């Protein structure tokens, strides 16, 4: 395994640029020309309805998918060259967690450090315990991922990304499956990490409150296209009808129910 050759700027966020990204799966076009620029050290939130291509976009951003056209640049170097993966610490929190099921939670968290031999075992254990505590999973090192609830798995996955102390971190729906209280804890952790090591954070979410709470800037994606980019205020005041509808819909079921009863 190649050691990431870390330079003195290891704790500084990197810039991320996406140019003209197109991607089709079996003839179905999922990304239809996406352009995004994420500035170093900012928290950038991508919102959009289910199936609009958010996860696919995120997978391109860390080089898991090859686009049909367009490119993804980290500090102006293509993500698809192996050197980029070695020069920068990157991390991703998968929508389903992506923990290795055959390893314990503790081993999962320490995986990056042990595989790249960045820290001695005792030190790894200390860091793992610390990050687990930060996400509210104190003392769960020896459990297997299958012994955790969905929300706990998600938090463990976030802790695994925290251990890496990355320069770019991608979160896919970090607060889905979490109760409101844990969601706030995770949001605080995300912001804290961003302040402490200036990591560039890209977050996919359809949790509006969370998104507007943490974002420095945000983008709204609909059906494989970016409809709006800007600060939360700019996006909120965007006159586009689809965006307004997406940002303001609410549950009206209770009303509909009582309406139908009164008939």
């Amino acid at each position, binding site marked *: 395994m190649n050691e990431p050759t870390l330079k003195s700027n290891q704790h500084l966020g990197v810039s991320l640029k996406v140019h003209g990204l197109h991607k089709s799966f079996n003839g179905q076009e999922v990304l239809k020309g996406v352009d995004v620029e994420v500035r170093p050290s900012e928290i950038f939130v991508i919102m959009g309805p289910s199936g609009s291509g958010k996860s696919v976009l995120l997978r391109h951003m860390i080089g898991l998918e090859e686009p049909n056209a367009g490119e993804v640049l980290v500090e102006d170097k293509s993500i698809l060259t192996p050197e980029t993966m070695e020069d920068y610490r990157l991390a991703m929190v998968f929508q389903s967690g992506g923990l290795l099921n055959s390893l314990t939670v503790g081993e999962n968290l320490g995986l*990056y450090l042990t*595989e790249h031999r960045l820290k001695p075992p005792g030190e790894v254990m200390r860091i793992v315990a610390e990050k687990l505590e930060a996400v509210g999973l104190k003392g769960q090192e020896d459990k297997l991922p299958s012994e955790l609830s969905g929300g706990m798995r998600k938090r463990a996955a976030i802790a695994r990304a925290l251990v890496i102390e990355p320069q770019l971190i991608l979160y896919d729906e970090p607060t889905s499956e979490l109760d409101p209280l844990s969601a706030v804890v995770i949001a605080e952790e995300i912001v804290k990490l961003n302040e402490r090591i200036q990591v560039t954070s890209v977050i996919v979410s359809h949790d509006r409150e969370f998104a507007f709470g943490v974002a420095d800037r945000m983008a709204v994606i609909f059906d494989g296209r970016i409809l709006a980019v800007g600060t939360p205020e700019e996006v909120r005041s965007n006159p586009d009808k689809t965006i307004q509808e997406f940002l303001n819909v609410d549950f009206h079921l209770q009303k509909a129910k009582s309406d139908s009863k009164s008939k």
Partner: protein
Amino acid sequence: MFQNIGELILLFWRTVQSLPLSWRQRHKIFDQFFEIGNASLLMVCVLSFFIGGVLALLTGPVLVQRGLANSVGGLVGISMCKELAPVMMSILIAGRIGSSMTAEIGSMRVYEEIDALRTMNINPIHYLVLPRLVAIAVALPLLVIFSILVGWGGGALVAATNHQIAVSFQSFFSNLREVVAVKDVANGLFKSFVYALVIGVVSCHQGLQTIGGPRGIGRSVTKSVVNCIVAIVILDYFLTRLLLAMFP
């Protein structure tokens, strides 16, 4: 099919290139090694015992009728170590170990675990394929040594106890020692080493190729076992010819 063979060779080559990392992955190699031994040692012994037994049972009476009672040991000895032990054990291991390698790697693929490794800049070939390939390449020849010895024992027992054959242990093994040379055993071990590489590469490759959910994993496992067995049987013919030509 040819694209598949190309991919297999590429995967094998990449794994060979990462061999210097074996020392680092030694814990994983040991784990895999013991898992293989645990899962198959008993089965290897039972199977080999009966294979040796049936060999003696079928050939013994015919040889005895023709006054060749003395050559039962040699016949069982040679067939066991040059052909039956390596091929049968490889097929057994393809079914027992190859399948579980494919299932494990396949489910890691399906549940985004391999993607997670890649985002951490951990090469799945170094992390998953290398330990498995090294472990099976060492374990299978060792299992074949067991198989040969137990098979000989089974043959000798049947030869001694079956009243149509009635060849004593002593004459069975003295004939066996006359006929079987060390190079014959080495021949069988070499074959099994090659088949071990085939099983390891095919199973891991099929696992990494898995798409779809649980059903995709099932499909991959079936495919990998069938491909391994077909490859072993076909390769066996050509390898045997080659070895016969090189060491007549």
